[in-house]
């Protein structure tokens, strides 16, 4: 054992064994890494990088500062309380002239209009007249539009002037970011985002719970049947997967609408009056029914794969020890299915929280979810920064819930198959 006492263990050729081992493993590690490189690059370039770039928009917007180069330093130095100086009016004039020339005034106007509505036309019309203005520009500008004397306009410009800004994130959680750097809650009637986040959570939780309630017995039935019958049922569960999401959602419209199949049946069986049919669609109920149906397979499959691995002897053993059917199920069978409930639950919940097509088609107003709003800002209002900020908040919520789940149930405890 003298070589141990003298230092590291040596390989046959005299190099330290640890180093040799590292060299021996390096090549195979490199080869294994080579296999995942294509996927890694794809994820990096097509998913991770765009996501990060887009998330950056939530806190960074230089549409104003990039164009209004003369006003930029002055607005940054301004204390947002005192009267705007002549120098600031001069700079504004110069910027308006320049931006009119290179046709960037529209973007600036839109940006400031988001902070203070009604300012858009002010910018565009003043810019049109700016070239012919004579100094002093302060009077000339106020002459063109007397709102230039309002300090709120300048505050909105100061907020827009900041490229790195928490304004969008604040907006996403119904806060208003002021020019002096403070936050305040928006007025009652303008607080819509928090309400939407809460409703999104609520719908996702209900869909997940309904999924467990409806999926558990189905999975249990499948796991207790013979292989042939179970496979037949499995195909029935998977069948919706082979149909387009859009088709399935539209099918629900045919079933649930006022003159639809469900309501006809209700009327037929006297459960509803003909003039007073249930409104099952274009509201929250519609979103809930359609989403539960679409997401149910994601609940059943993990549950089934977990239940299939639980031998029937456990329940038999419990019964032989004197446990009633219910006790044997609740104390012995059910705890062993928790990994399946966890996996199915988190899968359904995360899919539900970002559900978009279904609530858009059958949700109406009360069934609208946060992703519909993100889509609105992406395509209609073109306020990408707000969309990014809302996406970021959604991401944070999901990550938080994931962390919570890990703390309570444990991610290792999750089984998909």
């Amino acid at each position: 054992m003298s070589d141990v006492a003298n230092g590291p263990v040596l390989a046959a050729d005299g190099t330290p064994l640890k180093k040799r081992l590292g060299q021996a493993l390096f090549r195979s590690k490199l080869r294994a890494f080579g296999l995942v490189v294509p996927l890694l690059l794809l994820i990096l370039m097509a998913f991770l990088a765009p996501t990060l770039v887009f998330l950056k928009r939530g806190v960074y917007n230089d549409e104003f500062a990039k164009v209004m180069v003369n006003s930029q330093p002055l607005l940054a130095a301004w204390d947002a309380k005192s009267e705007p100086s002549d120098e600031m009016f001069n700079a504004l004039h110069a910027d308006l002239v320049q931006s009119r020339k290179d046709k960037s005034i529209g973007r600036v106007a839109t940006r400031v209009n988001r902070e203070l509505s009604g300012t858009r036309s002010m910018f565009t019309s003043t810019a049109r007249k700016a070239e012919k203005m004579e100094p002093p520009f302060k009077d000339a500008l106020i002459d063109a539009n007397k709102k230039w004397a309002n300090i709120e306009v300048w505050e909105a410009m100061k907020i827009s002037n900041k490229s790195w800004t928490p304004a969008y994130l604040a907006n996403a959680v119904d806060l208003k970011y002021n020019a002096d750097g403070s936050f305040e809650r928006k007025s009652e009637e303008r607080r819509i985002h928090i309400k939407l986040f809460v409703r999104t959570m609520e719908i996702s939780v209900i869909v997940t719970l309904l999924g467990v309630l409806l999926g558990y017995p189905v999975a249990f039935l499948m796991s207790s049947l013979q292989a042939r019958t179970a496979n037949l049922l499995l195909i029935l569960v998977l069948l919706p997967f082979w149909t387009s999401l859009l088709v399935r959602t539209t099918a629900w419209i045919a079933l649930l609408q006022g003159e639809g199949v469900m309501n006809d049946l209700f009327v037929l069986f006297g459960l509803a009056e003909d003039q007073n049919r249930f409104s099952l669609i274009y509201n929250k109920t519609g979103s809930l029914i359609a989403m539960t149906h679409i997401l149910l397979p994601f609940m059943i499959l993990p549950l089934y794969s977990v239940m299939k691995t639980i031998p029937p002897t456990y329940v038999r053993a419990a019964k032989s020890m004197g446990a009633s059917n219910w006790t044997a199920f609740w104390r012995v069978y059910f705890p062993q299915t928790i990994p399946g409930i966890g996996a199915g639950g988190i899968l359904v919940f995360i899919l539900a929280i970002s559900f978009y097509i279904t609530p858009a088609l059958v949700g109406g107003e009360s069934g609208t979810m946060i992703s519909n709003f993100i889509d609105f800002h992406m395509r209609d209002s073109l306020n990408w920064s707000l969309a990014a900020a809302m996406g970021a908040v959604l991401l944070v919520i999901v990550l938080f819930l994931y962390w919570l789940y890990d703390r309570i149930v444990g991610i290792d405890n999750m089984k998909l198959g």
Partner: protein
Amino acid sequence: MAASESDKDFVVFDRVQKSYDGEQLVVKDLNLNIGKGEFLTMLGPSGSGKTTCLMMLAGFETATHGDILLGGKPINNIPPHKRGIGMVFQNYALFPHMTVGENLSFPLEVRNMSKSVREQKVKDALDMVQMGDFAGRRPAQLSGGQQQRIALARALVFEPQLVLMDEPLGALDKQLREHMQYEIKHLHERLGVTVVYVTHDQSEALTMSDRVAVFEDGRIQQLSSPDDLYERPENAFVAQFIGENNKLFGKVEAITKGVATVKLPMGGVVKAKAVNCEKGQDTTLSIRPERVKLGASKSSNATDAKVLELIYLGDHIRCRMNVHGNEDFVVKVPNAAGHKHLSVGETTTVSWLAEDCRALDA
């Protein structure tokens, strides 16, 4: 006495039949009485109906016909959890989400025992199987033998009068299995509990049981003590299934005073104890390898034998010979001082006593 009568009939199978598909009977007309405190083993090849019988007794299968009585009361309509029968399963069925202590505590909890009573009983049961230090472990952290002990303790902790064991040692290696056989036997002796044990391993059955019921084709072929089973098999199946056996086929010429004279196809004549045969009928002769002697003897059953194969097994030498045309005739030659040395190809003489040769059904 009435008490002793009911002790003798603690468990009764009364003309029990079982069919799964309505076409074939898995258990055909089973009649079996098990005494209190008895260790009874159901032994048989797979598919012989033994496990079905155990499951009917436990309540997981219903009898298609007939009655099962426990302590004098019919239990056909009593659900498993009200029968109060302990059970050890083939793969132990220890609940993986509970610790060893919680596993043992489970049957006591469902009986609404107080916490202090539960803790004492769990401790006693664990000490009984020498696993006292393992209460906090999870089943997955235990070896196969340890899990087996916990399963045993769990089946015994609520003090049932009857314990069923369904091939409990099947998953253990040979050495551990033999060790556990003795442990279960000693536990049975100490506790006086009635045990019904199912196995397909005959050495397990012979080692542990008071009585063994040999199952084949849904019927009990023989029900007797291990030594009777081995030494006095009643039919050709039992003789073949239990232990090693040499078979000779022949026709009964005559039976006088319980001794049958059997003529073999090759022309030889053998005297055998008439057990299960009739004059003029075909019969199977059964001779245990260790009852065959080498060398000439005065017995009438001496014949020439050609040595075909020798296998050295330490304590004895297994010698395969051609006797009366049967090339699989095995003789065990003890490796004692001065035993006869054989060599392959040599012809020698073997003999056996008429009472060691049993004439059974064809």
